[in-house]
């Protein structure tokens, strides 16, 4: 049944392309319908399959001569991320309600992207996974280049090239694994059990991990993320931060770590405490956490703050992956879900609710606007989203980052110390942005943007989107068992099987 999330999205994208461009209302209503249908299937699938281990949804021969199969399967990790995609897709449509120009094309690219994302999370064949992964790249370029803002063509091209170079590395790894394994199969399970030599895994692992890590915002390959996020239209930046970065992290987990587990074995020598690829990537993750937070602290553009905070939060995911223990990996997966929801919400508030009304994202301009009084809904939504982002108890971010930290403490206490610094700075940049954008009582700033008129009222799609995302984060924060019940067995299997 879950396979229909993919088919529905692609069929929806195709249908959107055929909707006449004079009917934007039809286009967005239809997109909402498709997104809701996809999310419903995701929820039903989650309810049905969570806790049942890995189940195969579809398995057909695709290219028999080369042993490539069309295999879709879902375990707890996939289910959680499919659920996230469903929620993010609805939210994205709701926050794109004001797109008036080339609406049908917008939603065509949008739904194609969503379909690709569903596909990656459900693929159990490396070739198929790669196909879906690449399908997700092209729509991103057009979404940003056509409907974006600040330096959109630059941001879009940078993102597309980074993604494509990353996927080229993955493709080399895929070709190498396929031809070396000799198992005549590209199934993830088959490749994991193909007995690839540790020496081979030792160079394939970093290649593929970096390839996917580019899209996960891994430092120092993260530079596409802030510019891409800032240039993107709101829905696209929500999807970028919400699900596309998760594609990268998911690939790191499922492909790099799943197929090449011995790539993380020690090298046999160590330099400055770094003695394996695992240490290298953990170090990069920690640097990403601290660096992203520090840079977010000094941004003058509101959206850049959120963009760099994404780099920092994705660092937690990568660090969680590198702990290689039950609690750390569980935390990483939960953090993917949590950050997907919260980052989407933050981008929605900044890019749609605030920017579309004030037409500025400069914190210094916003300071003089008294937005807490004029846009109280936005202000309070940001307070809640900000606290969730800082990782306060009660929201999903807390339980996720807490688990990552516990996991990293067990793996290497040094990492934990540096991570703690990242969290403290995280509180600081969120508060700074919150204070400057909404609660500043500064009268010094010139009121050039006011012109005396009221800002447009908050519309129903905005309220619905905000409430939905906040509710999801709060629900998971208060009752994390619902996701953990699905994630924990899947992680256990992965760790035990040395693969899938």
């Amino acid at each position, binding site marked *: 049944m879950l396979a229909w999330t993919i088919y529905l999205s692609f069929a929806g994208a195709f249908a959107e392309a055929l909707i006449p461009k004079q009917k934007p209302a039809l286009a967005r209503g239809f997109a909402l319908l498709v997104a809701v249908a996809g999310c419903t299937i995701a929820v039903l699938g989650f309810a049905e399959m969570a806790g049942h281990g890995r189940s195969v949804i579809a398995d057909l021969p*695709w290219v028999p001569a080369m042993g490539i199969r069309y295999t879709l399967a879902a375990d707890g990790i996939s289910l959680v991320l499919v659920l996230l995609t469903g929620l993010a897709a609805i939210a994205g449509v709701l926050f794109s309600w004001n797109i008036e120009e080339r609406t049908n094309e917008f939603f065509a690219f949008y739904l194609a992207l969503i379909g690709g994302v569903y596909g990656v999370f459900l693929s159990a064949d490396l070739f198929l996974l790669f*196909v879906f992964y*690449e*399908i997700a790249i092209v729509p991103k370029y057009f979404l940003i*280049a056509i409907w974006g803002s600040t330096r959109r063509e630059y941001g879009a091209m940078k993102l597309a*090239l980074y993604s494509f*170079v990353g996927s*080229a590395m993955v493709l*080399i790894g895929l070709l*190498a694994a396929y031809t070396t394994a000799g198992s005549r199969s590209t199934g993830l399970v088959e490749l994991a059990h193909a007995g690839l030599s540790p020496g081979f895994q030792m160079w394939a692992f970093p290649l593929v991990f970096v390839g996917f890590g580019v899209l996960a915002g891994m430092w120092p390959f993260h530079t596409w993320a802030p510019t891409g996020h800032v240039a993107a239209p709101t829905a696209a930046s929500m999807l970028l931060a919400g699900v596309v970065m998760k594609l990268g992290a998911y690939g790191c987990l499922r492909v790099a770590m799943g197929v090449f587990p011995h790539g993380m074995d020690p090298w046999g020598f160590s330099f400055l405490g770094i003695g394996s690829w695992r240490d290298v990537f953990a170090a990069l993750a920690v640097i990403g956490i601290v660096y992203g937070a520090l840079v977010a602290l000094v941004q003058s553009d509101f959206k850049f703050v959120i963009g760099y905070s994404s780099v920092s939060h994705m660092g937690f995911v990568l660090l969680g992956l590198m702990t290689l223990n039950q609690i750390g990996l569980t935390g990483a997966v939960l953090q993917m879900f949590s950050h997907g929801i919260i980052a989407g919400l933050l981008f929605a508030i900044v890019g749609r609710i605030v920017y579309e009304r004030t037409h500025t994202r400069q914190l210094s301009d916003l300071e003089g606007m008294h937005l807490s009084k004029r846009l109280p809904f936005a202000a309070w939504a940001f307070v809640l989203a900000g606290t969730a982002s800082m990782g306060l108890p009660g929201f999903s971010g807390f339980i996720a980052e807490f688990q990552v930290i516990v996991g990293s403490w067990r793996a290497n206490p040094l990492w934990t110390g540096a991570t703690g610094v990242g969290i403290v700075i995280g509180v600081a940049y969120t508060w700074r942005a919150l204070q400057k954008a909404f609660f500043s009582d500064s009268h010094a700033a010139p009121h050039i943007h006011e012109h005396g008129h009221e800002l447009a009222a908050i519309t129903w799609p905005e309220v619905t989107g905000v409430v939905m995302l906040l509710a999801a984060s709060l629900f998971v924060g208060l009752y994390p068992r619902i996701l953990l019940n699905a994630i924990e067995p899947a992680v256990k299997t992965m760790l035990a099987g040395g693969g899938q």
Partner: protein
Amino acid sequence: MNYTDLLRVTMPETVLEGAALLVLFIDLGLLRKSSLRLRIASAAVLGILGCGLALMTIPLQAQGGLQASGVQLLSAGGSGAIAQVGILGLTVLTLLLLFDASFTRHVGEFVAITLMSATGGMLIAAAQDLLVIFIGLELLSLGLYILTAFAKRSGKSAEAAMKYYLFGGMSAAFLLFGFSYLYGFSGSTNLHQIMLATYGSNGVNATPLLMVALVMIAAGLGFKIAAVPFHLWAPDAYEGAPAPAAAFVASVSKVASFALLISVGTAALHVFGDAHVVRLVLVTAGRLPKTIGFAAPWSFALTILAVASMVLGNLAALAQTSVRRLLAYSAIAHAGYMLLALAYFSQAPVSAQAVLYYILTYGLTAIGAFAVVGVVERVQGSDQMDAFAGLHRRNPLLAGVMLVLFLSLAGIPPLVGFWAKFNLFAAVLQVGKGAVPFGLVALAVGMSAVSLYYYLQVLKRAFVVPALDKGRIDVHPVTLVALLVITLWVVMAGCFPVILQTWMEGFYV
């Protein structure tokens, strides 16, 4: 050999020649006073019917091909037949582009020469003998020079044809020179006999003179497929030639030349098999690896061409503002990828099939791309990237077709370009083991990541940049049908690669 045998093997070529003469007769004789539209339609339809008839005779070819005094002249079935079918199909698509052409009034001649060139291509695809190869190449090339020059009102067309002709004549001389050496070594003009005589049974008999011969031949064939450093004619020819002629050069002539390279590779392997690898000593000092293995010096020469083509083709394409020149440099890059699979060639049909799959689908996509360029050029009078601005508003369908074709050229799944690349690189890695082939494939994959940039530059004009001129761009219905067929194939063959693979395997039974 008697003439019945000859006819049975060369039936498709004969039919095609007959069709060419019929086209000339009808156009210059019966329809001399008729309107241009009618003459175009009748010539193109006759040409297409001729191709269709030739296609139907291919299964009737005699098994085992044509033998003369125990030596094979022409093959039948196998990779040669696949290439022949491909050549006929691509010729049909090229002729479909002629319907809205306005570059010439001499349509009869254009169609006839196209068909004759296609005949040359089909001969090359099946040829197993140096003389047949050379005749086929000349028949193909002379036609291509004329087709390139066909827009007589355009100075660029004449200049392009002149350059193409001069380079072509030179490379034919190189080729003939190399052939003469081969004949001198072996006393035979048959590919298999030559390989047997020059390499002996152990495949290590590579004398310096043989190297000279192989380099000469590589230069001659490298010219045909526009491999660096023999590519200089390509950007000018692609830019100056009328659109259908450019599409023909980019597709049919490439298919024929790669089919020839496959024949050479198969002949070489027929002699010493996959296992015998000629070791070329490159580095002797220090702890560096001492030898780099290639299946014969021929492979080494091809690898050099491949690397140069991939790198230079892709990097030069980045700097282009003319879409035709961009397509020319991208064609050079694509030739580079295919040369890689020819350098690491396998006796099993896997390599031949991978190359054929690539060149056939590339040819298909290239025809589509040139059709789009031709349509835009006719309205805008320019093939600069900026002429494509706002295409999505001026003709959404055309823009959608262009999106699919260019993304396929860039190798984005699920379009056929991706599958072709994957198949090709997998074939290389199945044949060549070790760090060198891995490195070469990594370079190729990396270079195809570079190629996304310039393809996106064109697509950006079509979808992102607002139109300067808001007028609608109309497409001739026949061109539109051809474009939709191509697009459908690009999508279907990408989503279901089995279709084309199963079809190819049918030729090897």
